[in-house]
């Protein structure tokens, strides 16, 4: 069956490779695979490496809000709030929420891409705790949300925003935002598992996120909207979140809306966490 090839530079090269591959296989150590926490952190590290190699994924989602901030502040700010400086105080918490909520959909994109490229299969065939891929991705995403928050805060402060709630207010506001976005991410992990392509993920998330972030109090106060629209906007979870975040950054915390945000977050995880895990375990 095997033919003896005549000696040539290529055959010595092949022999060398053969020896090295055998050596590499033979010298493999049989080790205990890492536990759930370590594997989750290894996947978190992977998410960070991805940000390093594909910084666009951060730029894409921060450039747009930066443009929005500048445009709304300088073009509409005077008309909406009387002066640009008055408006930026109002807008900053809103734009912060909008930006980070928008980025959450990248969770779905990443997972969907992993499935499409076979990374998912590879990782699920490893002897490690299977959900660690999801948990790691979500932890990585949370770090990404933090970075985006910092970018938005730096930009708005450069154009004159000074948070009345001080550093503590801002930190608490960002923390609340992260809790909410981490919870929302579970919706996206489910979508990422269920939808066929990254394109359809993009389409569906835009359909959900645009109304959610625009039918809200991100840009203008609810009282300025028509009466029939107000109840809708008031019940939008994003409006409640913006209200809570704004109150913290202003230094006058609204306990009611903060509590509501925490309850909504809890419900999201309670519902979409198990659904995601089930879809993940059954994923064919």
């Amino acid at each position: 069956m095997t033919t003896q090839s005549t000696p040539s530079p290529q055959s010595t090269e092949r022999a060398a490779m053969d020896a090295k591959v055998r050596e590499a296989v033979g010298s493999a150590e049989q080790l205990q695979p890492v536990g759930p926490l370590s594997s989750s952190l290894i996947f978190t590290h992977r998410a960070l490496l991805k940000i390093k190699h594909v910084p666009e994924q951060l730029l894409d989602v921060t450039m747009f809000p930066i443009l929005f901030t500048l445009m709304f502040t300088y073009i509409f700010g005077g008309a909406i709030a009387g002066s640009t400086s008055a408006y930026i105080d109002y807008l900053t918490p809103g734009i912060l929420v909008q930006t980070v909520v928008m980025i959450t959909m990248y969770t779905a994109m990443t997972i969907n891409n992993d499935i499409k490229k076979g990374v998912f299969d590879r990782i699920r065939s490893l002897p490690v705790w299977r959900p660690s891929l999801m948990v790691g991705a979500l932890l990585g995403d949370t770090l990404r949300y933090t970075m985006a928050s910092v970018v938005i805060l730096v930009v708005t402060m450069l154009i004159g925003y000074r948070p009345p709630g001080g550093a503590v207010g801002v930190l608490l506001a960002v923390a609340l935002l992260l809790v909410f976005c981490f919870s929302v991410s579970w919706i996206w992990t489910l979508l990422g598992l269920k939808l066929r392509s990254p394109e359809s993920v993009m389409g569906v998330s835009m359909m959900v996120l645009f109304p959610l972030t625009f039918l809200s109090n991100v840009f203008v106060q609810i009282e300025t909207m028509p009466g029939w629209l107000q109840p809708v906007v008031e019940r939008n979870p994003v409006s409640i979140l913006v209200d809570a975040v704004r109150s913290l950054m202003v230094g006058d915390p609204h306990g009611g809306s903060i509590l509501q945000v925490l309850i909504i977050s809890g419900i999201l995880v309670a519902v979409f966490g198990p659904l995601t895990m089930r879809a993940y375990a059954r994923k064919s």
Partner: protein
Amino acid sequence: MGCAYVGRMSDLAIETSGLVKVFGEHRAVDGVDLQVASGGVYGVLGPNGAGKTTTIRMLATLLKPDGGSARVLGHDVVAEAGAVRSRVAMTGQFASLDEDLTGLENLVMLAKLYGYRGAAARTRADQLLDAFDLTEAGTKQVKSYSGGMRRRIDIAGSIVVRPDLMFLDEPTTGLDPRSRNQVWDIVRALVGAGTTVLLTTQYLDEADQLADRIAVIDRGKVIAEGTTGELKASVGTGALRVRVADPADREQAATLLTEALGGEAVLERDPYALSLNVASPAEVPTALVRLRDHGVDVAEFSLGQPSLDEVFLALTGEHVAEVETDESEVPA
């Protein structure tokens, strides 16, 4: 190193019985029975959509069977999926590493997951890169790799720890001939180091070159199983091809050979050449002597086994769509 495995050569690495997977109305895998011995390469050959990938995914615990059972290295793939996963490695049909990361980062990540700590993970990754001739490419993103490099880094990722059994799903689909040869060499080296390899392929040549035994799958069913020799023999014949020195002698040669060997001589387009299928190859030398005795000079002759394509044609009534796949899957 191979010695440790000799004792287990008779063990079954894979044993399935009546394995079924249904997607909606489509029975992708429809009652597959396989027995794969430890050691060596087992080939699963079949055209696109035959159910090869689905079968391999069930064996690698990525997909739950809808019927039948499968044991891999003695463990049930459903009840003891964890035990299976700790001893097998799966290399999918597509690059199954993170394309955004570098080759090195991918391997370090896998090494850490498998339990290498800190600097040891880096050392192991470097060793693998070197073995697969990827040291230079190690610091580049996987997305910039050529098809052959991707397959190599993929396989490297599968042997971070030594798997007892390795699944390779169409390892050379879309590769250029040189890269294909490299992958073949790697597979042989893996086997030499004691790993059992189950590979799927739609290339007859590949199964012929690598596999000790082959299962031919079509429409979710195993339609033939055996060594390449057995499969070829099951079609019944070898083919004798003769070129005569003088085209005028060809008719006579055809008559003489038919008398001596039976079958039906086919006159080829080449005016010197004829061929016929031979039931008993042992008779061929006598038949050739007979040609000489009758004054027919033979310029060349060859006796070959039928190609796997002929086997496939005989088994399924269809040619394997090899040319078509080649053209559509070779990357630009």
